[in-house]
């Protein structure tokens, strides 16, 4: 135990970190590792790898991820902002490079290989983008003559264009939703909301007509006809698991679900550990989102407020899209389940998100002081 009297960085961290966040993040990572034993051997065998190939890789990414998360949580909000700016610039540059030099996987140029390691820069772009947008919105709120909102819109345009160019519609939707949520929070006028909302809807319609695979997926979701193998097997897995699950290692449908270790890990979890377990998992995600928003609610600093809200929004919406697809509430869309799914870039990037959240939700003396001062003001300064 670290003494409260100590004033070193470790002690500071220990006494100021939001331990609920830290615990749930680590819990989710643990669950993800556990589920990788259930989900990935079948996938590995299917593509003729040794059964525990993905489990080992998962573990190999878990430790650096954990270190990254904890390391980032030591940062002050100012350092977070700087890290984010650098990360955003680097990842945008890499996304641009990926467009021209990246290897094409399943018809999309999302990956870039650096020193033998494949990286999906758009994953790292997300938390950085959120933090930078939060900064721009907060600057605008602080000084309305600074065109922070305009910059944020331009930045969103750049990011959106890069994502659509890949193309990666899932990330585009996620990024748009997070950005829209932050803008909404930052006090977007209702007229703009309607305008942007209809623009977003128009974007959906455009995507439907421009990208045949999007049209196919939406059609299949709406009509239930065509090749619905993925979602059908996912549904079968969940219902087969029922309330209490078939038991660890007892899953059968998991063997045939495509992407069981990434996009459909939730269904695998349901088959082996049951729907009650999945409900607990959903509750953990809901807890993280609501706790983050509660932090934002209490926060005095606009940058911290927008950043924390934006980051948990990203976390929450990503989890909802993933689970929604698994539960056939949304059209099929590749999206990892944060901290649970296998995937090097996405896992490290989510650790960055978690690290940022932890860093921004630490108890800070100035925050406490401000709270007290407001309290005093409200009380009225006693006459002397």
């Amino acid at each position, binding site marked *: 135990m670290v003494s409260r009297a100590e004033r070193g960085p470790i002690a500071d961290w220990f006494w100021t970190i939001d331990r609920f966040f830290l615990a749930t993040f680590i819990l989710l990572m643990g669950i993800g590792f556990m589920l990788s034993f259930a989900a990935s051997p079948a996938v590995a065998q299917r593509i003729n790898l040794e059964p525990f190939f993905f489990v080992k890789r998962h573990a190999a990414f878990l430790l650096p991820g954990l270190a990254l998360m904890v390391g980032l949580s030591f940062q002050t909000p100012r350092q977070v902002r700087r890290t984010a700016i650098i990360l955003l610039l680097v990842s945008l540059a890499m996304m641009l490079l990926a467009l021209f030099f990246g290897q094409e996987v399943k018809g999309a140029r999302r990956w870039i290989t650096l020193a033998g390691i494949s990286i999906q820069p758009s994953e790292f772009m997300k938390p950085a983008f959120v933090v930078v947008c939060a900064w721009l919105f907060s600057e605008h709120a602080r000084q309305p003559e600074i065109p922070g909102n305009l910059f944020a819109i331009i930045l969103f345009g750049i990011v959106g264009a890069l994502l659509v160019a890949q193309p990666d519609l899932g990330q585009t939707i996620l990024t748009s939703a997070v950005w829209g949520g932050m803008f909404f929070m930052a*006090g977007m006028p209702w007229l703009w909301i309607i305008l942007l909302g209809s623009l977003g809807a128009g974007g959906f319609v455009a995507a439907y007509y421009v990208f045949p695979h999007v049209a196919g997926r939406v059609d299949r979701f709406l009509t239930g006809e065509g090749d619905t193998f993925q979602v059908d097997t996912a549904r079968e897995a969940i219902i087969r698991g029922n309330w209490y699950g078939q038991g660890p290692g007892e899953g059968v449908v998991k063997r045939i679900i495509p992407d069981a270790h990434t996009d459909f890990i939730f269904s695998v979890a349901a088959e082996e550990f049951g*729907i009650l377990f999945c409900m607990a998992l959903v509750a953990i995600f809901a807890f993280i989102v609501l706790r983050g928003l509660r932090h934002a*609610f209490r926060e005095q600093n606009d940058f911290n407020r927008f950043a924390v809200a934006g980051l948990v929004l990203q976390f929450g919406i990503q989890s909802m899209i993933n689970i929604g697809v698994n539960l056939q509430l949304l059209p099929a869309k590749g999206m990892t389940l944060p901290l649970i799914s296998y995937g090097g870039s996405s896992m490290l990037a989510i650790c960055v998100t978690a690290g940022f959240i932890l860093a921004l939700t630490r108890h800070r003396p100035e925050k406490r002081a401000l709270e007290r001062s407001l309290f005093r003001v409200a009380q009225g300064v006693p006459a002397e």
Partner: protein
Amino acid sequence: MSFLSRIMVVKSKAHFSAGGNRAPGAFEGTRKKKQSQTKSRLVIMMSAFVMAYGVIGGRLVQFGVTSPEEVSSIPPADRLMASRPDILDRNGEVLATDVRTVSLYAEPHKIVDVDEAVELLNSVLPDLDVKGTYKKLSSKSHFQWLRRQLTPKQQNQILALGIPGIGFRPEKRRFYPGGPTASHIIGHVNIDNRGIAGMEKYIDGQGLADLAAVGMTSNAPLEPVRLSIDLRVQNILREELVAAKDRYHALAAGGVVLNIHTGEVLAMASIPDYDPNNPVQALEKDNMNRMSAGTFEMGSTFKTFTTAMALDSGKVKLSDSFDARNSITIGGFTIHDFHAKHRILSVPEIFIYSSNVGTARMADLVGIEAHKHFLTRMGLLSRMQTELPEVATPTQPKVWKKINSITISFGHGVSTTPLQTAVAAAALMNGGKLIPPTFLPRTEEQADQVAEQVVKPSTVEDMKTLFRMNVTNGSGKSAEVPGFVVGGKTGTAEKVVNGRYSSDQRFNAFLSAFPIDKPEYIVLVVVDNPQPEKPGMGATAGSNAAPTVGKVISRTAALLGVKPKFGPDGNALLMSY
């Protein structure tokens, strides 16, 4: 102290708003407004998230309450478990019952390695169709049967292989403890335990199959179905028929024991038959049920009906005589007598000598229309109504001319089933009531409700006399059983081969009733194309069908509850030792 802290607060506030060049008060105002707006929007967002997660939770609950069988590509277990009722004989002996087995299925879309799966399965089931199975497992279908009704040992071995994507469904398999004993009556089921022949099919027709089709099958034991069959009598009848077929080198043999007062069939067999536990033999051509599904020209046994008709019409009395001195020539055909007496014969003489000429003259006296009408009334020309699905429709000439009436009078020109011949004969023995045959238990009262009076009781008395005389003095001597008064009529019909009557292919029958003084049962035995038992011996009905009836009666009378009568006047002898 407090003053100092307040200064610090102000300082920190100033630091916070550094860069703001507005008046501090105004700035505070906008900022507060902004903050409260942000807070209210945060609350909106929180509620949105709560709602979204609520939807996810609701969906999970919805999935949770969905029965796993609904999504499963495998049909629900209960549909396959369809029970059938046991079938019992009239004394409660089991004729058919359900045995639990398992069947092997695959969900091909879940098979990981088809080659391996087929190889492993082949190690347990060496007779597996490897190519076909490979095809099945490579398909994208969700369900395929691989092997129905495995033994428990096979199931264990396959389980031990641990092949993913295959499974077992419990099923019911029909088992017939008696094997072929009553095969043509009970019938059999298909692999899905649906009745496809005999009483099994009849049971399905009573609503069981309809229930199964809508999934309303149950695993619960059903009320057994009791038949009118007496397994002991059935077994004896079949045994005697098998022996007769063998002894007389016949193509086939058949027999029926019918209760004349209720119309219940106590035993019915047709040899060759098949084992319903392995119903593939049922499809072999000779294994048909000749008694109800085969039609034959019954030959001289039909003279029973001609005589009864003549007596019933009132135009002929037992004491009347007919000219049988010469053959009848009509329309280019000449009618001979087999045992020609070349004299004027009385009615009983015509019957016991089986005179074609005499019988033809009787039919001629009655008239063509009346003849046709009488046979129709006896149910010999229309399809018999009974529970068995395998019932053939008799054939008759399109237009009855005199020649038809004459030939039909001695059993040629009309093909009918042996069973309905026995049923019509029962009407001539039970007081004149035609009772549709049944394979289910029936009381006399129930029989009376469906019975139809077809001949006068006086005709019945005359017919009993004639039947008895034919056994004591006529061609049916070999059917006599000491103690049991047997009466009957033989029939040796020439079979039609290539459109002509053949003189060396016969269809023999012996239609009998016993005890003839107070008849209870009709026993009919037919032998299809018998050969002389030993060279030089005859092959007429009197030498094969009649003795077979005698054997059946002697062995079954006690089981049928008929008391023997000994002594010259038919009373039981008092014996003391």
